[in-house]
């Protein structure tokens, strides 16, 4: 029956949600056959297309969730009342990815220098801390995590240090916590990891007012108008980004989610659409998907750089520009901007590449620096057993030995001398 269904598709099977790839049809060659490479590839190809596959997967996922409280999809934790979480934000909230106070102080110190350099060039900088669902509603975490002893978190120390270093900071995590008891509609969805459409709408007022204040701009006006659409059946945008890929047999029970109608005025005299560069994580998409804040308020030359340095334009299709930040003149990527914003949630605080790049732009290594780094390399190599551990690391990370050694020496130099 599965073979017949696979061949003739008599019964319609809804496609599965989530990001996955289907195995391609392997090429049959004598060599592949004899080497035993063709066989497993064909098995995978057929397995991905076997009849009733989607039903069977949905059944398994539903049974796992309903009977065992386990989500089969990658990176999902099922909390109280089937509230879904991702492990990384939860770990960040528990302090499991803590960088250490010294490292955070070092990073924020660099951020302050970057902010100063940008300000000198007339480019305002704003750091926006997006909220973390695990921090926002820890009471809904899975039972075994609710009682875990929390350690110091990157969030706490970064905020403290950023305030101490006078970084332009907007802590939306704190704002969410303040709104939590009075909000009319959920600020986080039950089946999603990002702020809800309603949460984005509330935050947008605060965020763009702050951009106006820090940048000295007058942005295009927008406002919420008319009745708020409330639904639990047809949630929008990222409000089901975790529940969707669970691929259940029966509909996932969402909270009643609200979607305010946002009206954007046209550009008035004295207003402007600045060129905004955002370096951030997936929370940025909320300002494009629910309503076109970024598309409307900022110039088309504006860009969104993901934490992995993929470059996107502002739209709802995740359109990449294909630009490679390692190629070309980095200064040209930065200095035409009229505003630079970092927007990340706490589990992505561990990424420091963006600030490092900006720091290097304005404080490039000198010959003297390079000589000192060479000395550190030599000191490292003279330590007994050090080269063995470096070789092991190079193999593990599939990198060259020299590259790992230079990186190590450079990190030590940056942390001690610069």
């Amino acid at each position, binding site marked *: 029956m599965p073979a017949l269904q696979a061949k003739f598709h008599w019964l319609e099977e809804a496609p599965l949600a989530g990001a996955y790839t289907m195995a391609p049809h392997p090429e049959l060659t004598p060599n592949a056959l004899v080497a*035993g490479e063709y066989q497993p590839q064909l098995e995978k190809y057929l397995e991905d297309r076997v009849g009733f596959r989607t039903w069977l997967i949905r059944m398994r996922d539903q049974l796992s969730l309903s009977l*065992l409280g386990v989500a089969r999809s990658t990176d999902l934790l099922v909390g109280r009342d089937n509230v879904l979480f991702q492990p990384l934000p939860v770990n960040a909230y528990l302090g499991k990815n803590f960088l250490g106070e010294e490292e955070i102080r070092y990073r924020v110190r660099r951020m302050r220098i970057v902010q100063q350099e940008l300000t000198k060039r007339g480019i305002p900088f704003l750091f926006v801390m997006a909220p973390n669902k695990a921090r926002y509603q820890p009471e809904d975490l899975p039972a075994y995590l609710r009682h875990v002893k929390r350690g110091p978190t990157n969030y706490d120390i970064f905020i403290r240090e950023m305030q101490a270093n006078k970084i332009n900071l907007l802590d939306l995590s704190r704002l969410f916590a303040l709104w939590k008891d009075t909000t009319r509609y959920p600020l986080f969805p039950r089946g999603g990891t990002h702020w809800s459409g309603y949460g984005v709408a509330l935050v947008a007022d605060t965020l763009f007012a702050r951009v106006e204040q820090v940048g000295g701009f007058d942005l295009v006006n927008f406002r919420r108008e008319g009745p708020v659409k409330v639904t639990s059946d047809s949630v929008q945008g990222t409000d089901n980004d975790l529940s969707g890929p669970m691929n259940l047999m029966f509909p996932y029970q969402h909270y009643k989610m609200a979607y305010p109608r946002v009206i954007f005025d046209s550009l008035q005299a004295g207003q402007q659409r600045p060129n905004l560069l955002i370096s951030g994580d997936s929370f940025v998409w909320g300002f494009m998907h629910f309503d076109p804040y970024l598309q409307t308020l900022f110039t088309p030359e504006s860009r969104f750089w993901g934490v992995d340095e993929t470059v996107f334009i502002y739209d709802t299709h995740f359109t990449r520009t294909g630009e490679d930040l390692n190629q070309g003149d980095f200064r040209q990527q930065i200095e035409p901007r009229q505003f630079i914003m970092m927007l990340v949630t706490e589990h992505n605080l561990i990424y420091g590449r963006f600030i490092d790049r900006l720091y290097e732009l304005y404080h490039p290594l000198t010959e003297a620096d390079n000589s000192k780094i060479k000395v550190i390399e030599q000191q490292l190599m003279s330590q007994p057993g050090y080269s063995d551990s470096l070789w092991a690391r190079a193999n593990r990370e599939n990198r060259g030995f020299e590259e790992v050694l230079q990186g190590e020496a450079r990190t030590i130099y940056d942390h001690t001398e610069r």
Partner: protein
Amino acid sequence: MALTASLLFYAWGGLNFLALFLASVVVNFVLIRYMDRATNWQKRIYLIMSIVINVAMLFYFKYANFFVENASAMRGYLGGPPLTWEKVVLPIGISFFTFEKLTYTIDVYRGVNKPLKSFWDFMLYIMLFPKMIAGPIVRFHEIADQLTDRTAFDTIDHKLAGLFRFVIGLSKKVLIANVLGQEADKIFTLAPTDLSMSLAWLGAVSYTFQIYFDFSGYSDMAIGIGRMIGFQFPENFNNPYISRSITEFWQRWHITLGRWMRDYLYIPLGGNRVKPARLYVNLWTVFILSGFWHGAAWNFIAWGAFHGLFLVLDRLFLLRIYKKIGVLSILPTFAITVVGWVLFRAESLSAALAYMKQMFAGSWSELPYFTIEFWATLALATVFSFMAALPRIERWEIGTLTAERFALSRTLAQGFVTAILLILSVSYVIGSTFNPFIYFRF
């Protein structure tokens, strides 16, 4: 039909070894034909030739790497440069089909059975796909008649029973062994410093159930497919964890291997009819070889030696103690088995010893989080493994698994259970490779 399917099955998994494998089957067949016609010392020569060829093949493909690695290590120890060699690839199923070729040779030599007249029947015996990769090890005399005439077992009831048995095996593998294996794998890959005593025992117990439900699941599937196509393969497991001694354990665990070792190794060494000291040496030798058969590594040899030691201790005094404590002897026997499986599961002998150290001398701390699925599966595995300690349940179980005739009500009930288990297992198999990501990047 069965032979064609078997050839395709083998070719699919090991096309590059098919020619070698077929050549060895042809040589074996011809030698045994000659042996059957020969007399006295000539007969013995053919016997020895056949055994040497088969054992040499097994040694080359399965153990060459092991011996060269050890020689290289020894050379390094003595200050010489390490040996370089191209690793030998292991043909699938060689451990099992070598033993079957040997039983054919020896059974014919002993006159237990006449040799098969048809080469194709012989090839079918060796290649029969359900049991080829992981057993049961079918001794020639157990199946000789069925190779030429299977009408007695070619009934609807047998096919239904076969399907039921196959699905039971699949469920054991997919719904129990795989779930426990996932966690056992995680625990066994931890560094000893991260392993508390409680976690080490949990990992060892999980693996104990994993290997039972995995291996016996494969045997059930082989027996089930065999019944569906008209063959009656011997049973390979009989609730081994309710054994009251290691001696009994080996009458219930991998039964066909135990019998093979007994008939073709232990008895030729003198069996029970030797002085006690010699008997103990024989027992130990057989079990060390059995461990080595399971895998070409020191930890497998140690595993065999560990079991051999307890078989000797059984005969020396343990059986008398067990008799006194009755059913409670299941517990120490199970504990010995659990410890033994650590030797079997670990990546090396030193890793096994480090793991065992944590089991007996580690610190006792709270267990980390495991899902309800894991605990529920572990509980199920425990119940299914020990429930046959009640004689009534054991009788019911054996009756259910070996039934040859079905009343309508039983057919319906069994059919319903089979359908549910089949759908569940297939959904788990298919779903296990489907793990969509929420985001591709961040």
